[in-house]
């Protein structure tokens, strides 16, 4: 059923690395920015204020992860729409390749790139940021994988629907960035106005942030059962919908 998946995934990775600025833009720049910021404030953060220290301890890893995931979603949406507009999807359709294989290949590429970015950030940043010492890394990785799959599935749905490549990036951004505003990334959801809290409750990113922060702080999985349910539901609904509305051309 997923015939050709590994070959396609491998080819897509190679194609990505051949893009001008592909690897540098996606992996290099975030790591670099992280390092520069770390040099400037990292070690002194704990001395500045307890709030700054707590941000670096919990907020930062979650923020960095979510930003990387959102970046992956936007680039997935853009690639699929470019492939559609260029007739590449149509050409692939005239082979026994299934749509889910194409999407899965791109998701794997995005997961690998996100993972590479995060690993490099952790490796490069641990000199400056006193984080992650007590954090359950395996659990966090698992939570991140679940969140990423769920959020990427929103990306599928957008990718299945956007008409042209020119619209893909802006539409993706218009959907993804406001979700971040109320997700609890920048301020706790409880501190938001009631209306915004209501909005936050129906957006899947809120649950991803809650899960990631919770697991990072050492919460048990069962304490986040409703987050997991919400993320799973998002994944199922978005995947099913995008399979229905997916357009090849």
């Amino acid at each position, binding site marked *: 059923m997923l*015939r*050709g998946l590994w*070959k*396609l995934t491998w*080819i*897509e990775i*190679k*194609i990505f690395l*051949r*893009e001008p600025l592909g690897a540098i833009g996606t992996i290099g720049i975030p790591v670099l920015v992280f390092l520069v910021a770390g040099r400037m404030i990292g070690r002194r953060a704990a001395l500045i204020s307890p709030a700054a220290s707590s941000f670096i301890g919990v907020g930062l890893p979650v923020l960095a992860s979510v930003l990387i995931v959102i970046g992956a979603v936007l680039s997935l949406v853009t690639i699929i729409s470019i*492939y559609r507009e*260029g*007739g*590449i999807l*149509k*050409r692939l*359709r*005239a*082979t*026994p*390749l299934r749509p889910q294989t194409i999407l899965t290949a791109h998701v794997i590429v995005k997961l690998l790139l996100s993972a590479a970015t995060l690993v490099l950030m952790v490796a490069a940043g641990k000199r400056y940021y006193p984080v992650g010492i007590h954090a359950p890394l395996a659990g966090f990785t698992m939570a991140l994988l679940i969140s990423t799959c769920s959020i990427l599935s929103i990306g599928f749905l957008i990718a299945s629907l956007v008409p042209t490549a020119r619209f893909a990036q802006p539409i993706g951004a218009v959907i993804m960035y406001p979700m971040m505003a109320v997700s609890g990334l920048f301020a706790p959801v409880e501190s938001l106005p009631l209306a915004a809290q209501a909005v936050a409750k129906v957006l899947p990113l809120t649950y991803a942030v809650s899960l990631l922060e919770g697991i990072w702080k050492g919460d048990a999985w069962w304490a986040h059962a409703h987050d997991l349910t919400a993320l799973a539901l998002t994944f199922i609904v978005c995947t099913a919908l995008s399979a229905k509305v997916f357009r090849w051309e």
Partner: protein
Amino acid sequence: MHPVIQVSAIRKTYGSTVAVDDVSFEVKDGEIFGLIGPNGAGKTTTMECIEGLRKRDRGTISVLGLDPFNDVYKLQERIGVQLQQAQLQKRIKVWEALDLWASLYHRNAIDGERLLEQLGLIGKRNAWFMTLSGGQKQRLFIALALINDPELVFLDELTTGLDPQARRAIWDLVRGIRERGKTVLLTTHLMEEAERLCDRVAIIEHGRIIDIDSPERLVKRHCPERTVVLATDDRSAAERFRAIPRVDEITCSGSQFTIRGSGDDLVTDVIHCLSENRTRVTDFRTILPNLEDVFLKLTGHPIRD
């Protein structure tokens, strides 16, 4: 022998536009069959319904004994497709594309390297798709259409946008596909291409088939006109030409005569008349109608982009 493709009374509409209307035809094993007509006539839609890429609204299609829409995955194993205006990833290499395609089919793929050699692409095997010329891209698409050793090959506007030299090279390749015993269904709006390649053609306009036959027979059936152009200083020749049966019109400018008539005998009769009277001729040529003229006659307008 059972036909490879059997299309009967299919119809396809997009909103209120009827793209294909009551189209029926059969393609026999081992022939090159062409759907010809101007752009927008419904050729590509017809072809994509047969490939299983589009769902017809009405009618039945059988391809290699399968229903193309319901059995699309089974069918795709056995056919090769080249699409109009298709692209690949800009930075995919030629050999990677072939390798990927070869991995998609259950049946054994044929040797990609040999295919590249036969198609004159071996020197480009490590080139990115975006760096290939138009002709090279088309040859790669032919390679991809052949990689699964299909029984039936679809070629949609294969040479559009290519220069005459590249076009001729591609024609040779298509004849090569037939020589391998495969059946070919192609579309083209180039009448010369249809005349040189196709064993039989269906002329399509406004979504309907106007006539189906071999190019020669279509010309014979619809355009019996023959024209002889000759040059002679013999002023009295015009009178004698007028006596030839089935001559409709003679025009004369300077020493050049244009004799129009109909029927296969016209040319013989003119030659006969010239030799009987020992007329001295300094130029002699015939103008025979072609598919382009057939199209003009059947539709009332010339075929053009």
